[in-house]
């Protein structure tokens, strides 16, 4: 999730800035941005000649909360698996 981390640390960025100093191709970054955009985690706006991408921080927080819930349910289920296989 390099893009999310970069946008989090550096604020809204253009594709040029996102590609800078990265080993990942511009094409791959664009593809990833489109996926994140469909998921509602980033959005872009045209500013003059540049398209600037920014993080949808509230959406990101909601997604993280949802994932945490699922993760915690798995933790509980796996505790039960442990009990099941280790004590018999």
């Amino acid at each position, binding site marked *: 999730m390099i893009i999310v981390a970069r946008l989090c640390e550096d604020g809204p960025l253009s594709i040029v800035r996102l590609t800078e100093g990265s080993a990942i191709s511009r094409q791959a970054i664009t593809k990833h941005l489109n996926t994140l955009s469909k998921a509602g985690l980033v959005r872009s706006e045209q500013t003059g000649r540049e398209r600037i991408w920014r993080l949808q921080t509230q959406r990101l927080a909601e997604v993280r909360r949802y994932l945490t819930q699922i993760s915690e349910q798995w933790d*509980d289920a796996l505790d039960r698996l442990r009990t*099941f296989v280790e004590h018999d």
Partner: protein
Amino acid sequence: MATPTDRIEKQILLRAPQDRVWHAISDAKQFGSWFGVEFESGFVAGASIIGRIVPTKVDPEVAKMQEPYAGAAFQIHIDRIDPMQLFSFRWHPFAVDPAIDYSTEPMTLVTFELAAVPTGTMLTITESGFDQIPLARRAKAFAANDGGWQAQTQLIEKYVMLTAQ
């Protein structure tokens, strides 16, 4: 801020031999008994299986709490069964809310991978594909079910603990 938003990954070390862990995961009866559900049939690659939450018969108080969830059904679609190594299925994560029609939504892929280690078995669980799930549904699931999810988890946990005795 760097945690992934499209997957959950967990790794646990189980102090049990690989074949014990494999059967606990790949046998529908065994999986159901620790997970807290009764499956209608066995796990076969490519098959769709229905599971139902089964309330405990052991404790009437707990059973009463489980009543709203009794018989709550969900479906899993078995993906791969590589004996002793990997078991995977697709589902709608913990989707037991009767008010929601999950059938039109993408499913996540849950993968269990096993590796023998000197002290037992290393189990890696990955659930992926969350970015495919509509954000509105994800946010709604959180807001509406916050208490509901917790209660459900506790019920299942109590049930399994009681039936394990």
